């Protein structure tokens, strides 16, 4: 019985990890950017380019503290404010 319960709890934990929302994972992600992926940027976060020409699309809503950025051309890395 205990084995069944432990397996059930473990399975629920795995499902929970897998279903975490995209926006929350990309709001804290650091590292190379993928194209066609929207990353949430907070004040202090930055982008550094990894190719001669790097173009990003930035979107910002009025009154918002955050912005969204997508890689359009080239390569870039996201650095989060510590």
């Amino acid at each position: 019985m205990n084995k069944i319960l432990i397996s059930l709890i473990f399975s629920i934990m795995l499902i929970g990890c897998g279903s975490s929302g995209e926006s929350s994972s990309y709001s804290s992600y650091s590292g190379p950017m993928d194209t066609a992926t929207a990353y949430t940027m907070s004040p202090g976060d930055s982008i550094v380019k990894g190719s001669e020409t790097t173009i990003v699309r930035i979107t910002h809503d009025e009154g918002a503290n955050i912005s969204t950025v997508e890689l359009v051309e080239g390569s870039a890395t996201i650095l989060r404010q510590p």
Partner: protein
Amino acid sequence: MYRYTITKIFTGLSLVFSLLNADITKIMPLGDSITYDDLRSDSLNFRPAGIRTAYRSHLWYMLQDANFPADFVGSQVAGQDISPPFDANNEGHPGWTSYDISETVYQFLADNHADTILLHIGTNDRSSSVSGVNSILNEIDRYERDTGTHVRVIIALIIGRSSVGNATIESFNANLSNLVNHRINTGDMLTLVDMYHNAGLTAEDYAETTHPNSEGYAKMATVWFNTLMLPYSRELHAYPSSIVSTEYIQGTVVDEAAKSVSFLAQVPDTGITF
């Protein structure tokens, strides 16, 4: 009774304080004689500065009627003696070209900061080139960078002249339209108004070849007023250049209804920090 009087005093004071705290838009009417109000005939039959108003008085009354809190700013004073009174400050300089304005606009702003500039310039250039206007806008950008402020420029395709050919002005306006749209694309805080067509000036609206009469100036004021009344988010328009220099920006689109701005940015060597 005594209590009622005190309540009224407090109500009055709170109204005064709320008016003092209201967001007042500092507006600089900037240009030449069409902004100041100077006729060719003034060289022979001089009109005192106190009665020269151009479009400014008409615009002021419209803004007052709309409860739009405004403060006209500038080193020049003209129209202060008319009734009803209006804010007579301006930067209209009769006879000046766009090149003249480009050499002085930085100091104009340093002396009297403006949130919004109404720019009608180019009539005295007598050329289709807009390089002088480009220099004005560059100087305003330099002022913004130096002071960390954002100035909205509402720039007009200039009015034509009456009873003469307007080929040069039409060519100037076409070049100006291209220049302004290019700069808007790169995140500059510009709004283009078509005074040439939308003011709807006819021959009856001119006091002489170059300058409108009061009816003509009222029509110009309506174009400025209608533009000032449109939704305009200073935050959204200022955002692109607040995180990356305009030379790296392209494709700026501000959606006033959705309250959102989107643009492409080439990432500089120093990166982009949000």
